């Protein structure tokens, strides 16, 4: 085991997969010279050369298009969209082509693409660089959607995403790149489509995604002091969803809080909440509660950001309300 950052875990995943398979290539704006914005591909251009590590112009539609075309000829591109906010420019290729072609080929064509991007608030970037748009892709048949929260998860899931033959939308979080965690020194994979219980508990289940997992864990630790035992479940893959792990937890606790950074209406919190209600209706003591960002563009600066987005304090408050109830 070594303690490394989320960013370094990504870099290791890239490196190992590029070494293993020459067809794996990374393309995007400044993934080469700069080694990506948060340095998660640092040194890879030097090590693997411009055939495997490609800087591209500011052309998100072309980046995504290029990924589809080269994947169709057997390459395994990782197409980086620097901020998920810019994925708005790559959507046509992703939704209308990457997600549709394998079906249209009747299984003859595989598109092993990782559309890799990064979302969320936490770095004071304001509303055009802080959005949480993951649920868009959950609603598109043909795409896999992954959102890892820890260095361990990001490495294992990224390696699996690269090896998977489906187009995968892989969403990192900008507030996590410098978070540290334990990662095995030997190689490992984490299966796509597997949730993880990040902390076991008995009184209430907190389903949280990405950055929210960290806050949920902090809140759970605090709440333990107050005598509330929280189970924290991280789906990790939003589609296909490991309903079993989520449902098992709620069947045990009878209470569920869903925490997402995306605003409530139309977000993935609705999906999670529905799944739990559908499968745990008789064991639920109360309806599933959703705790999400306030419905607004993420404002600039550190203070407002923290007030808009759920954090450990607000999660504790939500859990208390749920457990003790009004």
């Amino acid at each position, binding site marked *: 085991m070594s303690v490394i950052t989320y960013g370094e875990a990504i870099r290791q995943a890239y490196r190992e997969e590029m070494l293993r398979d020459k067809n794996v290539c990374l393309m995007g704006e400044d993934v080469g010279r700069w080694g990506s914005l948060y340095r998660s591909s640092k040194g890879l251009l030097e090590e693997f050369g411009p*055939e495997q590590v490609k800087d*591209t*112009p500011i*052309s*998100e*539609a*072309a980046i*995504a*298009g*290029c*990924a*589809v*075309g*080269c*994947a*169709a*000829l*057997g*390459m395994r*591109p990782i197409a980086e969209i620097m901020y998920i906010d810019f994925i708005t420019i790559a959507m*046509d*290729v992703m939704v*209308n*082509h990457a997600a*549709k*072609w*394998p*079906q*249209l*080929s*009747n*299984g*003859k*064509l*595989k598109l092993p693409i990782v559309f890799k991007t990064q979302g969320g608030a936490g770095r004071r970037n304001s509303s055009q660089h802080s959005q949480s748009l993951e649920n868009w892709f959950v609603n598109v*048949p*043909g795409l*896999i959607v992954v959102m890892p929260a820890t260095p361990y998860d990001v490495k294992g899931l990224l390696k*699996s995403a690269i*090896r*998977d*033959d*489906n187009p995968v939308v892989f969403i990192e979080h900008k507030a996590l790149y410098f978070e540290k965690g334990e990662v095995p020194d030997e190689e490992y*994979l*984490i*299966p*796509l*489509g*597997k949730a993880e219980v990040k902390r076991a508990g008995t009184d209430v289940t907190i389903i949280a995604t990405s950055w929210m997992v960290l806050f949920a864990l902090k809140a759970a630790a605090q709440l333990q002091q107050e005598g509330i035992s929280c189970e924290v479940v991280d789906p990790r*893959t939003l589609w*296909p*969803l*490991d*309903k*079993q*792990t989520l*449902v098992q937890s709620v069947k045990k606790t009878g209470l569920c809080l869903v925490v997402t950074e995306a605003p409530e209406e139309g977000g993935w919190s609705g999906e999670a909440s529905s799944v739990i209600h559908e*499968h745990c209706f008789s064991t639920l003591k109360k309806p599933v509660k959703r705790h999400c960002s306030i419905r607004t563009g993420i404002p600039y600066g550190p203070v407002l950001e923290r007030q808009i987005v759920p954090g450990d304090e607000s999660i504790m408050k939500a859990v208390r309300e749920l457990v003790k109830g009004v």
Partner: protein
Amino acid sequence: MNTESLQKLYTEMLLVRRFDELCLSLKTRDQIYSGYHPYEGQEAVAVGFCGLLNKQDILLSTHRPHGHAVAKGVPVESVLTEMMGRQTGCSGGLGGGMQYLDIEHNFYCGSIVGSNLPIATGFGMAIKQQKLDRVCMCMFGDGASNTGAFHEALNLAAIWKLPILFVCENNQYAEAMPAREFVSCERISMRARGYGLEEITVDGNDVEATRRVATDLLARIRKGEGPFLVEALTYRLRGHYVGDPEATYRTREEVDAWRAKDPLLRTRTTLLNDGVDASGLEALDQNIKAKLTALEAWALEQPFPTLEQSIDHVTIPLTQQGGCACL
């Protein structure tokens, strides 16, 4: 071009023309379900350009793809039955008339205008990097040349020097929008300069010209001199789709003037002048028609795809990695 070669191109154009007519007739009988975009008048582009590709070369087409597909050599059986939504179609009948793939014949088309250009860059990149003896050709219309996708793709292809031939099939209209009003430059080929490329325009109704330019450019691309952008000037003789309100955007006279420049007529005249026998050409045509009549009869018998077929390949099961425990 010698008479024999020209006659060969003529025959291919005739096949495209008769195939288009067959589709039109099937559309009228509601055997083609979505909007159908006729190809009449543009055969010299399909045959001159797409007809030159090898099976291994990649062809990316548009929402008006059947001329390109047939010219490239995608079997007429699978093109026709795809349009008719049958299992034997290129995409198993799941895609229909404007979005299908024939993986074996390296043919890809789609109904989002302009999107094939960015995708072409990926094929070009893979070909170059894997040092394959293949090229990529990407067809698009005058309307598509106004999409952002066009621009991003041309720039990327140019800076990476990709083995791609971008063929702008300027048939003067994008639906009802005349290129003369909606494309801001006089010639679409003038846009080439913005990508450091040569300005190349060809008479798209002259199959000898399109074939000559295609041969030259593909040879240069195979030598590593790509990409190229070429504009082929042609005309869509029918409506954008069957029954579109043509009177809202063009006159009868304009259509008639272009009809006089019909690439088939033109080639036929050259062939006759070259001493080819009219009855020989007539026989060719009868031969094609007979084949297509048989094809139609066969096609109408083909089964439709099943629900399972339409679902099975949307996502490849994740089982290798442990799979997902869905409920």
